[in-house]
């Protein structure tokens, strides 16, 4: 599933996360590793892996990794249209 792939990318991007420990319904902002540097790593990962950009304010509307993936997928669709 693309959303699972997104979770794997997230785990690789943010330092200190054990691979396979998160799932699409993880509330990313509640994990121990989440801080201002993790945010920057996430934004860079989205740009590199998906070739779209998500703003810091946009992320605030997302609660889970699935929410972020939905935002990314919508942006990709919009860019392709």
């Amino acid at each position, binding site marked *: 599933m693309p959303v699972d792939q997104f979770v794997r990318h997230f785990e690789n991007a943010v330092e200190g996360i054990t691979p396979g420990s998160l799932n699409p319904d993880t509330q990313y902002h509640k994990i121990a590793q989440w801080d201002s540097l993790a945010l920057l790593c996430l934004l*860079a990962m989205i740009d590199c892996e998906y070739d779209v950009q998500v703003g810091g304010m946009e992320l605030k509307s997302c609660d889970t990794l699935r929410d972020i993936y939905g935002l990314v997928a919508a942006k990709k669709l919009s860019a392709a249209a």
Partner: protein
Amino acid sequence: MALAALRRARIAGVASAVPKEVVSNSDYTVLPEEQREKIIKYTGIRFRRWAPPELCCSDLCLAAAEKLLPELGWERESIGAVVFVSQTSDYPFPATAQILQDRLGLPKSTLAFDVNLGCSGYTYGLYILGSLLEAGGIQRGLLLAGDVSKMHGDCDPASAVLFGHAASATAMEFSEKTNPLFFEFGSDGSGFKVIYVPAGGSRAPVAADSFEKGALASGGSRGATDVVLDAAEIINFTMREVPLSIKRLLGSADRAVADVDAYVFHQANQFINNQVARKLGITADKAPTTLYHFGNTSSATIPLTITAKLRERIAAGPQKLVMSGFGVGLSWASTYWETDHVVCPPLVEI
């Protein structure tokens, strides 16, 4: 996005100067040690050079120019232009460039002015001075670029550990037989609040409460005369604009990414530069860094990196360089330069 080329302006020499005093981010006790080390790892910045209160950017520029001019063998009378690129001028007015004209002993016929730019300032400055030379009438000029800024509050972890002090002098001259310099520029003022100082200009003059520090959600505190820095938007800006800028630049110079010997990026932080390198498909050895020892020195980062990391290679033979400055404005400018007998003295410390 604008592309340009200069075909009769030559970069003859580059020199850089820093204060002797070294400060260590390991001593930044506003943050607990674990968090501090994490930021050091992310930014790549361990040490920074710090100027004493009486030392201005212009003093560092002067030291760099005084080192460079004898090595070039240039007579002062032969210089017709001084462009001072900085966001830390000596006074609100007059322009610092005039003061430097006098301190350097340059003739009264010198054209001199300041340019208020930061991260993109060096590459902008090359184009501005190069254009003056190419227009004719002026044979030689000096680009003096750098910053000694203390507007990043010690209490704001987002900016306090990033900035250091440095300045540079770059000598350019009119030449009919030189390699062309290629440029790509851009501006996006809609993002000016991504990096800015709220108070101290005409829009919001300094008031009694400007120095009061407000608590930050991320920890630490900040006043209205301290720099505001939105790291998330800086990441997005850089990744959106800079790789494309460089690709457009190389296209205009009819060069491929792999043709370039070294990419001299503005040294903002290592994480950002790693992302730019990754998007360009270049390896770390092609993107020299001076962040560990000097941090972000604004418009001086590119010449400082040339001095500290590339001077021996430049002395050994021609190098194909891309220089890219990006940040405050928001603003960016990239330059393609094939070096040719460039004088590059060792780093000056004062």
